[in-house]
């Protein structure tokens, strides 16, 4: 905002100075006419006596100018002139930048959904997967016990929600028996993965006889 004001003041100063120049040249012309010059001659001579207006304006700019702003404006004007002269080059530059940015954005969003955050979890950066390693037995990713889960769950000042899952298979007996493969989860699961149910509500642990069905069934 400040530099905008400064810029306006700068323009006003320019206009004022030009007005002064005009008045001066006209006064000088009048003087020359009254000393015997023809109006055209007087005007010409007055201009010559006054000097190079553009150079004088420039000199006054040097006195007042905000150096960086002036340089910036000059660069912008220069590049604009260049751009005007070579429209196809500019078009090519803009197109390559646009394609580059677009491709990057596309790849990043694909990577994000496929590799980085496939489940679309809102605060995926705050999420931690706890695994159990038992070095003495050379076990990695061992299954954890309910007691360990309770320990984690009691660290409420660290985590806003804790869940445990276990892969299970069920048999659905409805006409043809079919095998269902799924996860058994603790109530905290839905707090973390945050899907919105289209009907009803999720189980929250207060009732142990609740069931959560998807349309796949």
């Amino acid at each position: 905002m400040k530099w905008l004001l400064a810029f306006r003041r700068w323009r006003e100063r320019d206009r004022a100075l030009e007005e002064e120049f005009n008045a001066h040249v006209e006064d000088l012309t009048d003087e020359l006419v009254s000393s015997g010059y023809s109006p055209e001659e007087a005007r010409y001579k007055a201009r010559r006596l006054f000097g190079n207006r553009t150079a004088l304006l420039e000199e006054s700019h040097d006195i007042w100018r905000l150096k960086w702003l002036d340089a910036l404006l000059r660069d912008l004007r220069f590049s604009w002139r260049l751009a005007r002269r070579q429209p196809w080059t500019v078009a090519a530059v803009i197109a390559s930048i646009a394609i580059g940015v677009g491709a990057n954005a596309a790849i990043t969003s694909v990577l994000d959904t496929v590799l980085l955050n496939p489940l679309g979890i809102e605060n995926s950066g705050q999420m931690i997967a706890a695994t159990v390693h038992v070095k003495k037995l050379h076990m990695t990713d061992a299954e954890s016990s309910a007691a360990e889960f309770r320990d984690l769950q009691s660290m409420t000042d660290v985590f806003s929600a804790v869940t445990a899952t276990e892969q299970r298979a069920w048999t659905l007996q409805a006409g043809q028996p079919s095998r269902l493969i799924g996860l058994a989860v603790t109530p905290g699961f839905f707090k973390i993965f945050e899907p919105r149910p289209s009907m009803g509500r999720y189980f929250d642990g207060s009732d142990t006889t609740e069931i959560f069905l998807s349309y796949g069934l």
Partner: protein
Amino acid sequence: MDDNQRRDLFPGAIEMMILQILKRGPLHGYGLAQRIKQGSDDLLRVEEGSLYPALQRMLKEGWLDAEWATSPTNRRIRVYSITALGKKKLQRELSNFEQMIEGFSRVMNAVRT
């Protein structure tokens, strides 16, 4: 005097003349140019436009004040007047200038004899 045969002034000479002239009363740019021409019997002819950058510089330094007014010829003009700071500056410049002339003439005389 021929237009092409101008005397080069030392740096700051225009500022000193402007301050000295304005001490007698406010004037606009054209008036200042007239005073300089007449006062020097046309020996000094500064390119009249070159007064304006000098005036701008002095406005910025706070040695002058400027106010818009209408000239007797009915043109919008900016009238300049000297400030207290400008008067002090003039005092200092004049004494510096006198010292410079003094030193200069002593050297010239010493070399001549």
